[in-house]
Each structure stands twice: as C-alpha cells, then as structure tokens.
C-alpha cells in the first residue's frame, strides 16, 4: 500500500457530531482539523492503527500568536 493510500485509509469520528472524518492529506499529532459536517475545530490526539483519535480543539487563548 502506498503512503498516499495509507493516508487515505486513516479515519476518525467527530466527537461533536459523530461524522466520519478522512483527513485530506498527511496528518500530524496535535494538528487541527475541521469537521466537514459540523465545522467544529478538532485536534488529532493520536493514532490507533488506522484510526484517528480526535477531540475538540482548544479555544484560542489570549497569548496565542506569532
């Protein structure tokens, strides 16, 4: 299986609306994704095999920035 196929096989479930989520490309732990159904910002907590562990992303805090 190619790396691209592996990425496409990754799946998770939105913790807010339970929609199935397949990330569009390579995904990293702690990356922020947006649920395509409910638009909730989600964070990748980790991987269990080909399953993404997702939770609601932290809200922007006062000291966030560049």
């Amino acid at each position, binding site marked *: 299986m190619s790396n691209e196929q592996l990425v496409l096989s990754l799946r998770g479930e939105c913790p807010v609306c339970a929609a199935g989520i397949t990330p569009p490309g*390579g995904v*990293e*732990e*702690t*990356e*922020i994704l947006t649920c395509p159904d409910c638009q909730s910002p989600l*964070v990748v907590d980790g991987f269990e095999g080909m399953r993404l562990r997702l939770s609601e*992303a*932290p809200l922007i*805090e*006062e*000291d*966030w*920035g*560049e």
Partner: protein
Amino acid sequence: MATIALLHSTIRAEEKLLLEAARSRQAVLKPVDIRTAVFGPGHFPLDFDIALERSVSTVKGTYAVAFIEACGLPVVNSLAVARNCQDKFQTSLLLHGAGIPTPRFALVFEPERAIQAVEALGGFPVVLKPPLGSWGRLLAKINDQDALEAVIEHKEVLGTPPQKAYYLQEFVRKPGRDIRAFVAGGRTICAIYRESGHWITNTARGAVAKNCPVDDGLRTLCARVSEAVGGGLLAVDVFETDAGLTVNEVNHTMEFKNSEAPTGVSIAGAVIDYCLSRLEGGSS
C-alpha cells in the same frame, strides 16, 4: 545528522512545511509537544542539538526557551529575542533607541494619562493595542476622546491585568497595504505586501499576500531591526509612509504559510537552514 527539537503546541501548516523541509535537508526535526513536557532538571530529555521554538502559545514557548537555554543548548529564537519581540512596548523602545523609524508610542496605566498621551502623540486617531498580543486581535482604532474613554473603561472592568497596560501608538495612514519582511540572521530572504481595505492588515484578518520585491532600503532597514532585537528569525512589519519606511512590529515565531507561494521562496527551508547554520557557528 543534526537533530532539531521542534518545540510546538498545536501543529499548524507551518510546522508541517518545516517537517517536510527538514526531511529534504537530511536533518532530523523532532516534534516536542511542550504542553506535555516537565521542564525540571533531570526530567526533560536533552537529546537534540538545537531547538526551534514554534509554540502558538507565547507564554508556554517562552518558558520552554528559558529552560532549554539554561541547560546550555541553543534555541531559535533565543530568550532575549523572544522577550524583545513578544512585548510591543519593549520592541518600540528598542527600535526607538536604535534610531529606527517607528510610529510614536506611549504606555500608560490610567485613563486620565491616556488622554495626555494621545495629545503627546499628536492627537486622534490613535491605535490602542495590548502590549502582548498577536493576529491583530483586540486592536482598537480610537478616533476621539469618547471612544478612548469607552474602550478603556471596558478594559478596566473586563480585562485581565496585562490588558490594563495601555499601549498607544500613532495611527499611520497606509496605502491599503503593509510590508512583512522575513529575516534570518539579519538577511532579508523575502517579503510580501499584505493588502486589505481594512486598516488592520494581518493575513489572519483576511489580508491578501502578494510578493514584495526586496530593495536595498528594505534590506538595510531589516538588518538594523534584526540587530536591535538580537537577531534570529524574524518577521518585520513595515509601513510605507510619505516620510519613508517605518517599522510597526517584529514577530519572533512567524507564520508564513501564505507567503511561500507569492514569493516563491521556501521560508520553511530557510528556517531549517538557519538552525543548521547556528550549529556550524553562524551568526545570531
């Protein structure tokens, strides 16, 4: 092969570009989620050659940098640079002290003093900013005394203590854009125009990035800014005025995902190259 610790909180598009750039340069970029680290002697594994601080949280990033520097390892950017850039008042003081053109500014703690400060800045309009803040958030263009009193009263009642340090800046009329220059060790690697019909020209607030040719004037100005704040990797925000270029702010954990395409420059690659050059004894 050099190992660079990527000190991060949430992974953004920039960090993914950095991971890709490191892979193509035979460098190991080791992600370290600083939110889950224990920064105490003997607790934190110092299994890298240099650290690159990319935390979206300024507070957490600064503590991580302080710890790793104290352990004797280099960090990009250094603690001194982080402190000089994260606080707008500190940055303004350094720019002013170095004779670099920058908008007039003042910092006050009392509403009555704010009115005095505005008079000293040349009158309304002025811009009220949190000294610690980013992405154009909580900026207020204050057009008259009524608005000044109202905004400060809200901050006095609702704000956290850092929000009650009132940094005021002369309002600079811009030609619908400003310039963001990306600087590595004093050298300007590329620049963008940030175009917007709004007076706030952060790309985080919807401004459009277009390539800005780097001429000698911008190059020299950015080299002076870099020297004033301590070098490192910087994003220098510059206004074009009738009197010439003037430096608004300096960012020390720059975001650049919208700037690589218009400039054609791999900023992520330049960041990794700069870290590797520091290991080879390059300049700060």
